[in-house]
């Protein structure tokens, strides 16, 4: 099993969620994060003092998936989340040793 982690733009989250659902994903875990990268930030001004804000709001998705689904799901995410402008984000995968469903104690792929 794999864990797919995706950092995407907040405005794309709804679309990606729907696309993943359509691709058969049953669940995911989502969090609000801030990204640093090539994408520039913006400047805020308070009483004439400038505050450069170089952290940009992003959404992080974590999706547990079976090995065989992984490539397809990455494709779905990349395709849906891409706008072509800097800051669209990253997707990466790591190997997961075990998954347990808390409710039932089921283990492995059936727990996803």
């Amino acid at each position, binding site marked *: 099993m794999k864990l797919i982690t995706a950092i995407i733009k907040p405005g794309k989250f709804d679309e990606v969620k729907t696309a993943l659902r359509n691709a058969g994903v049953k669940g995911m875990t989502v969090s609000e994060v801030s990204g640093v990268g090539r994408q520039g930030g913006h400047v*805020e001004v308070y009483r004439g003092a400038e505050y450069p*804000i170089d*952290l940009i709001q992003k959404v992080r998705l974590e999706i547990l998936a079976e090995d065989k689904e992984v490539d397809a799901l990455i494709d779905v995410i990349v395709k849906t989340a891409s706008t072509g402008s800097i800051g669209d984000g990253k997707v990466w995968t790591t190997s997961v040793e075990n998954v347990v469903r808390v409710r039932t104690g089921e283990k492995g792929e059936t727990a996803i």
Partner: protein
Amino acid sequence: MDQVVLSAGDTAWVLASSALVLLMTPGLAFFYGGMVRAKSALNMMMMSMVTIGVVSVLWVIYGFKLAFGYEANSQWYGSFSLSGLGDVVNELTNNGGVYPIPLLVFAAFQLMFAVITPALISGAIADRTKFVSWIVFVAIWVTVVYFPVAHWVFAFGNKEGDTVTGAGFLASRGVQDFAGGTAVHINAGAAALALAIVLGRRIGWQKSPMRPHSLPLVLLGAGLLWFGWFGFNAGSALGANNIAGLAFINTQVATAGALLGWILTEKMRDGHPTTLGAASGAVAGLVAITPACAFVAPWAAAVIGFIAGVICALAVGLKYKLGYDDALDVVGVHLVGGIVGSLAIGFFGSSAVNSLGLDGIFYGGGTALLGKQALGVVLVFAYSFVATLIIGYLIEKTIGFRVQSEKELIGVDQTEHAESAYELGGILKGGR
């Protein structure tokens, strides 16, 4: 000005009322500001704040005379001249009769009305308005729309010797509007509809959720509006007297009735009475009782409020049917509420509670009064809607009225004001 001398008591109440009405505009800023998403909360509130700035300055230059001057002896506008308020420090108010309060106090009180009316409009164009264009709009709109319309409704003219000169045309035709159902609410509501059409729908409207980012802020706004509205309505008696007392208690019970009417409608239609509904209902009730507060009995005020609560709760859904994006329902609340209240006088008006009032249909007065009221409603609506449409398109075609869509997506707080409303996380959010 023979007999009438300054009454400290009446002056005290109108001074207090003026302060109360000023507070309504920040109150409105919070009411509106809480209803938008966090990314445009500041812009929403700034539209109200800057309106206070612009209108107050124009008022002291020429606005007061344009609305309440009488020298032109016109029923359409006051006079084209400087307000010259520094020269009348010791004069009493003269508006179809002499009132025992300083003219400057009347000028201050009326200024607060001129401030809040354009501010009300801003709710329709949340999330997408160029701030500079809003400033330009306000300056033009009060000059071309509000000041004249205030003259139509509120100027009872100046009494010189035995004659009265410069009364507004609705005022002199006996249209009853105690505190501004037509001049303020229908006026603002019609303008809101026009601007919602000019600016068009927000990106993602009806697709992505745009829910209030802070209901406590909405409730704070509603609370301050309610509080300030006692000055708006009971202060319009221009004295601390029986009519002020009637207007005061009517304001309270109509608002209460409307709050109940709105959440009852929600309970029956959606299954839950909501906080936003209670706040909206209260405002709808305040709007509806505004024209009527000194012309009806308290029981009738409660009924009018209740009806307004129900009708406005139903009316806010209209925009989805008709397809205009009046973001914060200025039409559904102020236009519709203003109409309900103005027409209600035609039914519930009672000369028994106010000798200057007339009997409506339920008191055996026939339909004459209702007819007058309908006239006021239609004329103010039509003038405001058309004029605003023209002003709006002019601005849109010249300097542009709406921000670029990229800015709209990022949020107008950041793009128009280089700020963000909250920095709660402290470490990351909007921080280094």
